[in-house]
């Protein structure tokens, strides 16, 4: 047992070194822009760059739209499957796993060929269409996470009783979903939302191939042309990811711990 503990420490320390050395080196590197001293110059240059601001804003808006679209698609479906169509669950689970199987680059290639400017549904003919297609693509990428988060949330509430109670009180379907079900799974939905945000914010492949002015292509451009700014951007990106994950952890403390009634 003693040697077991020794080896556990060895594994832990080696692992920690592999993960922390690159992070610390990146922070250190990002502070070196001014010769001889540590400074936040790289951050100032990056944050002051108009293109940083516009692309970041674009990606934030794209991420928010992705979350809204994802909620609109996933919440009713997951709710309905729990309530009425449990036999569809394996099919829906399979579909939500597909984006993990089909690489993003393949999905977006399909979009470009199928929704090009001279196709029956010409998304790519206009700027807004292309923006919409980007949000749609991101929603596809986030399906596995969103569906699992919402489904886990639904598992902890008694969907059927809540629905029946609402119906007895005279609520319609819209009211049931928006005022009864959604507030009960809000924490789960928000966890899915933050994860989606973390994935989407710096996404490169889809944004670049759809020629959108998003944060991912901007990162690529800076990475190819500058020395210290990329390190600063990496630190910022890590902080954003960290922020999203911490919010999920904080939220999970408020989530109901177990099923009130197993469904």
């Amino acid at each position: 047992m003693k040697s077991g503990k020794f080896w556990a420490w060895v594994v832990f320390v080696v692992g920690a070194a592999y993960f922390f050395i690159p992070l610390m080196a990146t922070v250190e590197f990002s502070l070196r822009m001014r010769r001889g001293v540590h400074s936040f110059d790289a951050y100032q240059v990056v944050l002051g760059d108009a293109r940083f601001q516009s692309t970041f804003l674009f990606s934030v808006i794209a991420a928010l739209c992705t979350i809204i679209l994802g909620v609109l698609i996933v919440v009713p479906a997951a709710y309905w499957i729990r309530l009425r169509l449990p036999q569809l669950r394996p099919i829906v689970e399979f579909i939500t796993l597909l984006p993990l199987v089909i690489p993003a680059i393949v999905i977006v290639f399909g979009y470009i060929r199928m929704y090009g400017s001279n196709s029956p549904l010409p998304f790519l003919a206009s700027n807004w269409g292309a923006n919409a297609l980007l949000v749609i693509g991101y929603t596809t990428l986030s399906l596995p996470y969103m569906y699992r988060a919402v489904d886990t949330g639904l598992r902890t509430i008694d969907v059927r009783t809540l629905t029946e109670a609402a119906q007895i009180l005279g609520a319609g379907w819209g009211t049931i979903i928006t005022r009864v079900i959604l507030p009960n799974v809000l924490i789960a939905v928000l966890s899915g939302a933050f994860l989606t945000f973390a994935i989407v914010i710096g996404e490169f492949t889809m944004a670049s191939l759809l020629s959108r002015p998003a944060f991912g292509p901007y990162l690529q451009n800076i990475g190819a042309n500058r020395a210290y700014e990329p390190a600063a951007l990496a630190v910022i990106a890590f902080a954003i990811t960290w922020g999203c994950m911490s919010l999920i952890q904080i939220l999970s403390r408020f989530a109901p711990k177990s099923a009130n009634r197993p469904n």
Partner: protein
Amino acid sequence: MTDLSLSNQAFATKPVPPKEATAFRLPTQWIGVAPFFIFALMFLILPTLYLVVGAFRNGEGGFTLDNILQLVSDPSISNSYWSSIKISFWSAIIGAFAGLAIAIAIVRGGLPSWTRSATLTFSGVASNFAGLPLAFAFLATLGRVGIVTTLLRDVLNINIYAMGFNFLTTTGLIAVYLFFQIPLMVVIIVPAIDGLKKEWGEAAATLGATQAQYWRMVVIPVIWPSFLGTVILLFANAFGAIATAYAFAGPTLNIVPIKLYSQMNGDVLHNPQLAYAIAFGMIVITGLANVFYIWFRTRSERWLK
């Protein structure tokens, strides 16, 4: 059991008409799932099928196997598949064992409890820290003027670039991909190790099993399916990754996703049929991997209830 009594109750207390009424208004039954299925069909399934069908067609629309055969006969394409498979395979295997070792260390190793929560939090972050920023971080560390590179050179007099280190080799990319592969393994496998019930260990001990026998005959068989399933997930994860590699080398690196990217990003898609075939090959490889994943997952879930 609860479920059964609940629905009986519902049947007993509820007057019959509402249920009957919805029975022949068929669309309402599907209305909740309709947006999901329409979305999945239009933006996931049909675009993929479009490429798959395109892979088997020639320029005039007739059926052909030439595109698929070209994947094998064109050495630059078949090489790109090989390097992609190699990188994905080894980063998955190494990532899986390293992740498993870390998971066992924090769950069973008798370390203080903060190591567990710190590792899990960090793994959640690092498994999502991929793409371009990851490449930037490694360039700042081990790039030609990176912090660790210069430290090694100035302090220990080791020039890693003279020793043949390069991010653009299979080994270089594997080392970088491990940064998100290991944490992903940790995130997925820790619940599986938690699922090992204490009673099993006690039962084994009561029956006189040694620690080694307990591991060989209880722990490994129970963890094995979810471990293998995760390996396959890691494989697919690395196989589709493009941004990190692209940040290191731009379009020059010869791996499949970058090959497809440059085919698509050129001013003219000089051979769309070939691009279809490349995409089809990617789907086949990750698809096969995922068929195994689903199979192993259903096997492992039997034990983790």
